[in-house]
């Protein structure tokens, strides 16, 4: 299965001065139209038709994106995973001074992201190739 992805800066999402995590990808406190809990269904990405990435996208992206430009850091728009220190984190696929890496960065609901920070969103699965009959 192949996933189509989109790379967008925080400013591209309509936040020229940066934005909070919940404004970009939503939060645990999101609710649906009826007021029922609907975690991570909000955020600006919904208005753009962007989906959150599956948790295992980043390890695969890190392997497949071998020609990532030096200095680039791609934040994965995913439902944060809370680790043993109690902090929710998301992946960052980065090309730093020590090479390609799969980093983890805190993504609390109120954490602020800079306008130039790049997020990777999912556009859904690539359409399956039509079978020949």
């Amino acid at each position, binding site marked *: 299965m192949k996933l189509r992805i989109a790379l967008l800066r925080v400013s591209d999402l309509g936040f020229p001065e940066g934005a909070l995590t919940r404004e970009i990808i939503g939060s645990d406190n999101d609710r649906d139209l009826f007021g029922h809990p609907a975690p991570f269904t909000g955020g600006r990405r919904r208005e753009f038709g962007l989906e959150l990435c599956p948790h295992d996208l980043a*390890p695969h992206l890190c392997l497949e994106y071998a020609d990532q430009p030096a200095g680039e850091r791609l934040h994965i728009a995913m439902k944060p995973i809370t680790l043993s220190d109690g902090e929710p984190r998301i992946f960052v696929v980065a090309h730093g001074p020590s090479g390609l890496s799969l980093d983890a*960065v805190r993504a609390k609901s109120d954490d602020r992201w800079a306008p130039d920070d790049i997020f990777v969103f999912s556009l859904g699965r690539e359409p399956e190739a039509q079978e020949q009959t």
Partner: protein
Amino acid sequence: MNKDIPTNQSGEAHSHLGDQGELWFAAMLPAGWAWQPPRRDLGKDGLIVIRDGTKLHNIEFSIQIKTSARPTIVDGHVVIPSVSRSSVQYWFASPLPTLVVAVDLTKRTGWFAWHLDLFRSPKELFQPNTKTVTIRIPQAN
């Protein structure tokens, strides 16, 4: 822009190695394996509850992850030095089994062993002469 809230990236350009290993492990779990972090980290990194409708459904166990950028491998075993003895004793005191996972962050590979299989005898565990123990996880796992 609210100046009281610092931007996230500048304060945390690189996370702790252990966090990267934990996040990698939690992200690679099969569908239906629910990762639950502890309320306080006292020697276990989390709990996994399997809710996948298979014969493993409802199985629950603890997890301790040891992350390294380049793990030491000797005689077919991944060697993890300086593991807190009190943490290991905690695994044995707990009613839940603990899966100990060694993560190689560079190669994004993991090896695992149940805590009960890590020691040949309880003597090794309860000798109080050192505060740490060395764990060896078979490379075949």
